[in-house]
C-alpha cells in the first residue's frame, strides 16, 4: 500500500519527509503538499502515516498486486502508549479492529548509561554493561 496524501489535510510540516526510512515522502515546494515520489520503493511500513499529526496520509494496496477497495488505518498515541488499527475489507462490510500496547514507560525516560573510567580494568574483560560478576548470573540480567 504505497502512501498518498490528502491535500485538504496536509499542513506542509515536513514530518513525513523527516521520518520515511525509504526517503520517498517529499514536500513539493510549489504545491506545499507532501507526496510519495517513488511508490515502488515504499515498504508500506506506515512510519509516515503514524507520524503525520494531521492524519493526512493514507495507503492503498499496491496496484500491481492487490485488488482494490480495502483499507488499513491506524492511530498511534504516545500518551496512552497504545496503537489502534482498523482493517476494512474489499467487501466494505468486514471490519477488524485491534488495539495493542506500544511501550510500558513514558517516552524520553531512558537514562544515559554511566560506567567506570577508561582506566578501570573491567574494560579488559568480556563482560558488558550491568553484567557480572559472571556472565548472566545477576538476577534480572543487569544492574
Amino acid at each position: 500500500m504505497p502512501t498518498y496524501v490528502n491535500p485538504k489535510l496536509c499542513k506542509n510540516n515536513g514530518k513525513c519527509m523527516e521520518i520515511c526510512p525509504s526517503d520517498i515522502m517529499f514536500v513539493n515546494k510549489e504545491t506545499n503538499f507532501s507526496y510519495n515520489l517513488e511508490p515502488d520503493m515504499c515498504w508500506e511500513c506506515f512510519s509516515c502515516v503514524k507520524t503525520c499529526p494531521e492524519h493526512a496520509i493514507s495507503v492503498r494496496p499496491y496496484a500491481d498486486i492487490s485488488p482494490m477497495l480495502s483499507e488499513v488505518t491506524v492511530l498511534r498515541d504516545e500518551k496512552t502508549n497504545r496503537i489502534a488499527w482498523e482493517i476494512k475489507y474489499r467487501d466494505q462490510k468486514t471490519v477488524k479492529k485491534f488495539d495493542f500496547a506500544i511501550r510500558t514507560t513514558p517516552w524520553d525516560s531512558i537514562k544515559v548509561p554511566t560506567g567506570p573510567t577508561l582506566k578501570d580494568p573491567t574494560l579488559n574483560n568480556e563482560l558488558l554493561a550491568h553484567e557480572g560478576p559472571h556472565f548472566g548470573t545477576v538476577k534480572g540480567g543487569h544492574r
Partner: protein
Amino acid sequence: MNVKHVDSDILIVGGGMAGCGAAYEARFWGKDLKIVIAEKAHIDRSGAVAQGLSAINTYLGYEEGENKVEDFVNYAKGDLMGLVREDINYDVGRHVDPSVRLMEEWGLPIIKDEKTGKYVREGRWQILIHGESYKPIVAEAGRKAASEVVNRAVITHLLMDKNDPNRVAGAIGFDGRDGSLLVFKAKAVVLAAGGGTHIFRPRSVGEGWGRTWYSPWSSGSAYGLEIQAGAKMTQMEVRLIPTRFKDGYGPVGAWFLYLKAYATNRLGERYENNREKLRPLVGDYADAKPMPTCLRNHLMIEELKEGRGPIIMHTDKVLDTPEKVEAGWEDFLDMTISQAGLWASQNHDPATRGYEIMPTEPYIMGSHAVNAGAWVSGPEDVAPKEYQWGYNHMTTVTGLFAAGDAAGGAAHKFSSGSFAEGRIAGKSAVRFVRDHELHVPAFDTATVDKYGEQIFQPLENYKVGRNYITQGTVSPYYLYPSQGLKRLEKIMDEYAGGWTSYYMTNADLLNRGLELLTMLREDLEYLGAEDLHQLTRAWELVHRVWTAEAVVRHTLAREETRWPGYYYRSDFPKVDDKNWKLFLVSRRDPVSGIWTMEKVKYLPMAKPTVPVAPA
C-alpha cells in the same frame, strides 16, 4: 561544495539494532568519548525494524534454565549445515538475555505468562512482544548515548589512514537533505549498516516492487563499504530464502511455532517430513533436528517443481479462539502490515481458509538463518587463536569493527542478537581507542577531494546529459539508479540462482554473470541523479553491486551445494564435507582490485573459562 567535518573518537555507521547497541555500550565504558552515529535515514524509524517486530527471535532463557549457551551454538551450527563461527555465536548467546532485559526495562512490552512471570515463548528461542515501537525505543537509548546523531548521512566510503592503508580513519558521504559533503574522522569505526535486499530480483512487480520481506532500504551498504576498504569477507555465498505468505511477505514463524499451523501441498500431503528425500543430497544432515531452514525450503521447492503447488498454510485449522485470531493479526500489524492489507483486499479470512506460502527471492544478511559479512576477530576467551587478532569483533582492517548484518560468521542473531553484538563491538571499540590514545587519525586530502568529486558525479552526469535529450528517461549519456538496479536484479536472478531458476546456478552461469556484472560496475560511472534523493539511490546501487560481486565470486569458488534450498550448484549438486567443511574468506585488494579467495579451516570454539550459568 559545502563540506561538514565531524570528528569523533568512535564513529558508528548505521543506527539500527546493532548501531544503537554499540552506542549504548560505548557510552557506558567511554564516559567522556565523543561517539557519533551517521545514519542514512532517521534513527527513530530506520533499518529493518522500522515498522516494528512481533517477536524477539533470540532469547535463551539460561537463568530460567531453558537453554544453555552451548545449545544456542549447536542450534545455529545445525541450521547452517555445520558452518558457523562457534566462538561468535557463543559470545552473542551469552550477552543476548541481559540485552533483552535491558530493552524490557526501557519499556519494550514483552508478553509474560501471568502465572509464571516468564516471557511467553513463541518457539524454543523466540519470545513474543508488542513490538510496534521496538525501533523508536531502542533508538531513544542509542540517540541519548551518542554525542551526536547525524540523520540523513549517506555514507559512501570508509576513509583509510594516510600512514597506514589498512587502518580506518573515518568515513565519507553526503547529507541527503542539504547536499553537503560529510567528512567523518574517527579513531575507531563500528560498521552496522544492515543487510542486502534487491540484490536479486524480487517476486514483486510494478508499484509493489518495494514489497520485499526484508526492508528495501537494506542496501548492502555494510558489505559495499567493507569490500571497498579491503576487509576480508566470509559466507557471502549463503543467501537467505525465507518462506513467507505469498505476495504480502508476512512472516510464518508465529504461525508455525506459536499457533502450530502446518503446511500441505495441493494433495493435502504434509510434505515437510520427508527426510529420505534429502539423504541423497545431504547425507546425514538429513537427520538434523530441527531440520535446517534450507532443507525445509528444499522440500517445498521440490513440491513446487513437481507441480504439487500451491503450498497452503492451514491457518484455518488453528485460529479457534479470539486470542489466537488476535495474535495472528498482531503478528502482521507489528511487522508486515502489507500482509494484513493484502488479506483485506482479497476478502481473505484466515480463520476459515488457509493461505499460500512461498519461498522468496534471496537476501544477503548476517543476522538471520544465514551469516554473510565481514570476517571478524573472535572473543578472547573462546575464539581459537586462528580466529583472533586482538579486538573482539574487529574486522581485518585495523580500527574497523562490525556488528549485526555487517558481521559474518554467527547465525540466528536476529534483532536482539544484533543489538547484543553491537554492544560487544561498542565495548571493544572503546578498548581500542584507550589503547591507541596517542594515535591521531589523518587522511590524505587528495583522497578526500577525489571522493568528494566522485560522490556528486551522478548529479553532474545528469545535469550535462539532459541537455542532449528533449525529455523522458531514455538517454545514452547516463543511467538512472532504478535502471541499474533492475539490470543488477536480472543478472543475479538469472545467473546467480534467483527464484526464476528455482535457485539453480553453475560455473558457466556464474562466470557469465560475473562478466555482465563487471560491465554494470563499469557503467556505474555514468549513473545519473536528478536530485539528492536519486543520489542516495545511486550510492545504494553501488553498494549493492559490490555485494553482488562478492556473492557471485563466493558462489563460484565453493564447489558444492551445502545449502540446498538456499541455492544449488547443478555442477556440484551435493554437500561435500570432505573438501568443503570450511569457511571461504575473500578479500579484494583496494589498490590492485584483485580478489583473493582463501579456504579457512573450520575450528570449534575453545572451552569457555568464565562460567555462564549460575553456579
